[in-house]
């Protein structure tokens, strides 16, 4: 059994190597947000500074891009969560005509390559002479996040005991009252998880957005546009802050979930 032990230890070490590999670009991003660079390029370490944190919003079009990304992510998440939860409830709770076709559409929306989705949306907007702006970005973000919300909510709905809702109705609750006081609290973790996923997908999207943005620039689009001229350290700082907020929310969530159980 000594061979097996050594094998396990090797596997353990290997897993850590992969984790280090996956995290190294994050470390680089955070580190170079503190780089006191003098030249135009930000690729060599030149000393520690907090300057970029103080001058975080000094590049006005970058700030606008970040602001656009946040607003677009917020609006598209709200729309996606509302209509996605409704469809998730319909699919998880009811039997109806067209259910198979609906499942197929939900699956198709997940499996269509982003590139094809963006290209087809642009074809639609060009054919219909629809001007491209923040609205078309929101429309497309709802489209690619929708299925993820539907799937997470449905997974939660099917674990829910239908007799709970029946009991509420037997006790005289209205349909809306039953939903608000019984169904919604029970499926809330699924709804929240779907919402966080939708927000993360939206704020991170480059490919689809690049087709439908018109002249509106989002955070990822701005970054790709700046690659040739050099990424300013402010981008690293913004990335670092988004990373920290995301990790805090995730850890808080996990701690809260552990306390509840």
């Amino acid at each position, binding site marked *: 059994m000594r061979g097996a032990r050594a094998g396990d230890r090797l596997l353990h070490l290997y897993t850590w190597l992969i984790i280090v590999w996956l995290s190294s*670009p994050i470390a680089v991003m955070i580190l170079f947000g503190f780089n006191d660079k003098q030249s135009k390029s930000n690729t060599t370490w030149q000393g520690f500074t907090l300057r970029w944190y103080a001058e975080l919003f000094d590049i006005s079009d970058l700030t606008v891009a970040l602001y656009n990304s946040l607003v677009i992510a917020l609006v598209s998440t709200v729309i996606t969560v509302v209509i996605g939860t409704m469809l998730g409830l319909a699919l998880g709770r009811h039997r109806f005509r067209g259910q198979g076709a609906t499942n197929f559409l939900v699956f198709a929306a997940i499996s269509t390559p982003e*590139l094809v989705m963006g*290209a087809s949306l642009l074809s639609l907007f060009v054919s219909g002479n629809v001007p491209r702006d923040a609205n078309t970005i929101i429309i497309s973000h709802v489209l690619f996040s929708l299925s993820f919300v539907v799937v997470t909510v449905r997974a939660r709905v099917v674990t829910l005991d239908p007799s709970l809702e029946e009991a509420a109705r037997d006790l005289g609750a209205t349909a809306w009252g039953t939903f608000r006081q019984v169904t919604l609290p029970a499926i809330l973790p699924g709804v929240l998880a779907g919402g966080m996923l939708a927000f993360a997908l939206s704020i991170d999207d480059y490919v689809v957005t690049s087709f439908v943005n018109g002249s509106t620039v989002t955070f990822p689009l701005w970054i790709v546009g700046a690659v040739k001229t050099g990424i300013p350290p402010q981008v690293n700082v913004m990335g670092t802050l988004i990373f920290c907020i995301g990790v805090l929310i995730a850890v808080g969530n996990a701690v809260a979930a552990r306390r509840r159980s």
Partner: protein
Amino acid sequence: MRRLTPYLLALPSWMWLAIFLVVPMVAMASVSLQTGNAIDGFAMTFSFSNYADAIGRYSTQLVRSLLYGGLATVAMLVIGYPVAYFIAFKAGARKSTYLFLLLLPFFVSFVLRTISWNFLLSDNGILFGTLKGWGLLPADFHVLATTFAVVGGLTYNFLPFMILPIYVALERVDPRVVEAAQDLYATRAAAFRRVVLPLSLPGVFAGVLMTFVPATADPINAAILGGTSNTMIGNIIQTEYLTNLDYPTASALSFTLMAVLLVGIFIYARALGTENVLEAAAR
């Protein structure tokens, strides 16, 4: 009223998916058969030659994309499987910590992660610059703008999507089944090959689907890490659509890409057996 409920609940999503997923596909199919240009406008001429032209002009990039996507997927499978195995069977109570660490990169934007790779791999950057300074690497050594950089970037970016489904499949394997195999005098290798591996195949299947399609169609890694000689089909479609405004060619290419991917998935599904496909799809 109660019988109408599911339809009313589904209605907004139906409309969204119909108007913005189905109709655009039809619009794109129609555009791909038109001729004309962005200034004079496009007219429907059922010109199927658009497809022949587009494929003829960009077959190199199409083949290259499939090759890079395929190579990256194989690399992810080889690199990711042992990690999934370790977390499922050996990590004990720390399972969720390891999963969390694997998912950390997702808290950083995809674009930014790829750029950080560019940082790390740059010719005279913190990694190679230092090694060159110590004389450990020749001065003209470079990784950026090579096939290796692009395939490596794709592998890096999509690896967690390979690890997670395999982990989910392995996690469901009852350890007692493996013990039973060993009690029946199977060696560790044989127990793995005949028991664990077959049971993990649905996860492998899902992982390959989740990584091959986006990796093949991805334009970001090639754009940021690949230089000018590693252009993938995603970059071509973007350029044709957004810079050249050649909508028919771009639409024809998009459809070709999707058709190729669908055929690939179909062949792959047949090869692995339909039960596995259904099982993977049901999850």
